[in-house]
């Protein structure tokens, strides 16, 4: 008997070992995600598969480890209005940020958001580094909480629990910020504000310099900032929308009309679409129109418009026109309708 592992057959043994390792990893992943042993057990009742925590049911006791290493359990939220939300993998930036805004505003009234995620992605780490949040985010890598709170068939989930531990709202998705605000106001304030909030203000004032602001040139695909544009005596038309896909055709039509208007030829015009618009959709729909004007897509929130508490702009403020003077400072800000009407008069 010679040596079992020789130079000649080492490749074979390495392949076998690698196969074992890969198979082990696959099995490990499958076991951690699926309940294989249930195959050997008695057939579960059919309704168990679609169990869902509903309105009026008590929240089951739970505990978990947060990203920062603390252990929290049901006692942590006892006596508070708990907003428990689950995201499997991809953090919903706006939702996390808005929960923080609500937490700061209504924390003293008893609101306590709690996030649950299966995986701490680099995206989430980056987000938390840049915009720290004060509420805990539990890491549920073993899917205990996902199964316990019946989020297992969904990527997202949300539970709103009253101070006595009874579920007041249960969804297998996340809510829009506006709905979240209404929900919190309903239970914590006692009434919902259906009017546009009073703190909706344009923070940019005449005389101000425009802030550095990251943009993508939609036609050329290049990245730049607002300061890279020729801002002297220029006009910036800023498009926002509560539903970007719904409004885009109308906006592009307006844009094509403006381009054809002889009175606007002498103007230095820039069109900026807010971050919520999709680059792909813009490119797609612009191909169909003969628009030669420069169009930009924002890469970040334009903080000078609106306040973090407001989730929707009034209809008149969805398209804002910012005019600059010879020193590139803000000369005036107007809604598009009024600006166009004045132009047509001239």
């Amino acid at each position: 008997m010679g040596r079992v592992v020789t130079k000649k057959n080492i490749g074979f043994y390495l392949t076998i070992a690698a196969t074992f390792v890969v198979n082990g990893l696959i099995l490990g992943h499958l076991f951690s995600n699926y309940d294989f042993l249930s195959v050997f057990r008695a057939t579960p009742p059919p309704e168990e598969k679609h169990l869902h925590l509903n309105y009026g049911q008590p929240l089951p006791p739970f505990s978990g480890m947060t990203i920062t290493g603390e252990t929290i359990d049901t006692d942590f939220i006892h006596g508070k209005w708990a907003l428990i939300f689950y995201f499997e993998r991809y953090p919903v930036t706006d939702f996390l940020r808005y929960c923080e805004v609500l937490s700061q505003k209504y924390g003293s009234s008893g609101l306590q958001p709690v996030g649950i995620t299966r995986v701490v992605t680099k995206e989430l780490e980056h987000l938390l580094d840049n915009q720290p949040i004060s509420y805990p985010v539990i890491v549920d890598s073993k899917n205990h909480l996902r199964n316990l709170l019946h989020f297992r068939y969904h990527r997202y989930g949300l539970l709103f629990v009253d101070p006595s531990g009874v579920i007041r709202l249960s969804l297998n998705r996340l809510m829009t910020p506006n709905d979240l605000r209404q929900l919190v106001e309903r239970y914590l304030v006692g009434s919902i504000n259906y009017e546009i909030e009073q703190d909706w203000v344009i923070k940019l004032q005449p005389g101000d310099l425009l802030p550095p602001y990251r943009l993508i040139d939609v036609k050329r695909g290049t990245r730049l900032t607002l300061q890279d544009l020729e801002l002297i005596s220029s006009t910036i038309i800023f498009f926002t929308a509560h539903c970007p896909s719904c409004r885009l055709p109308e906006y592009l039509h307006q844009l094509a009309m403006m381009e054809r208007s002889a009175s606007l030829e002498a103007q230095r015009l820039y069109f900026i679409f807010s971050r919520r618009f999709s680059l792909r959709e813009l490119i797609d729909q612009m191909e169909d129109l003969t628009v030669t004007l420069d169009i930009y897509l924002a890469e970040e929130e334009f903080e000078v418009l609106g306040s973090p508490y407001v989730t929707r702009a009034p209809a008149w403020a969805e398209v804002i026109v910012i005019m600059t003077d010879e020193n590139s400072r803000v000369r005036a800000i107007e809604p598009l309708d009024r600006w166009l009407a004045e132009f047509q008069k001239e």
Partner: protein
Amino acid sequence: MKGKRRLWSIISMTVLTVALITSITVKERSSLLHDIDRGEDNDMVLSDSRNAHTRSSQEKEKIVTTYRKVLLFEGFRFDIPKFVRRDREGNYYVLDQNNHRICVFDPSEKFRFQIGRLGQGPEDLNHPTGFVIGRDGRLYVRDADNLRIQIFDQQGHRVAGFQSPLKTPSMAVNSHGEIFLNHPTKGHLISVYSSEGELRRQFGDLISMSRAYPGYSDDEKYRRLLSRVMMDMDEEDNLYVAYLFAPIIQKYDASGKLVWEQRLEGPFIDFLTKIFWAEMKHRTGEKQKLRAPFTMSIDGVQMAVICKSIAVDRTTNRIFVLLGFADIIYVADGVTGRKIELISQKKGEIGRGSLWTLTVNNGTLYGTRWARARCYRLVVSSTDPQRR
């Protein structure tokens, strides 16, 4: 030498022919109708706004009757209003979808109270998509995100309800309080439920592609998708339906028997059909010049809408169908289903298709606009002295 020259001349001729054919095809495609404008003599001219210089294939449809919009509930802030309805006392009811409520106004348009608010409790709503006022004065609401039908009395107290998974906004209620829902997944066009949610009966065949669009081959997967309808009911419990994705309207009698089926007709309907197919081809990866300004996603398939809303005027027995584009209303006779006319906005006010729902009460039309979150009364006037 001669052979080479001959070869070159054949090649160049072939290239020229191909170029010529291509240019003709491109021109033909680019001059597809796209925009709507009002021409001389109040004709409606359908033309291509993207290629203003190639208006070779304009089509005309005579518009005699127009409407103007009168703003209702001035200053009141909705978030996606839908369906302006009125009860026997003249009170207005408006569904405020993103505020999860139904707003009630008195006949002088003054806000009285609201029914429902965001939540999952018995009297709560979560993104309601449609409602009707029954003959008994009750409000039947499709509470879409809570997957249920809610029934409220006129004071806003819940009296009944049941679970219903489909989210389409359309529903109707007959004189016995039975609820008509469009449930094509159940194998029929219409399913009729009691107020407790018991399935009473079903009727109406699902529509096939070849029936909706003659000349196109049937595809089983489109039967359920195409069978999405909007509906309204008259005093005799006749049900009128308009297909969201096909230019077809139908009338069923109180027993569920099909009385008539009519295809919507005219140049504008042909134009809408063109848009529908351009959008379908675009979604399957074929590049299209023509695109629909208004589409709806059903089961993940995005399709251009042909009919947005249907309303039956019980006083004149006319059917009003809000078409999927340009705020144009198709008027048909309630007895035969035949086309009477098209109604559009006044000259200079051609809409971009922002009207979302259309209802009619005692001969008056009401519309809601999504983009600006407004409700309107549509004042119809005719330029034809005979129709005034």
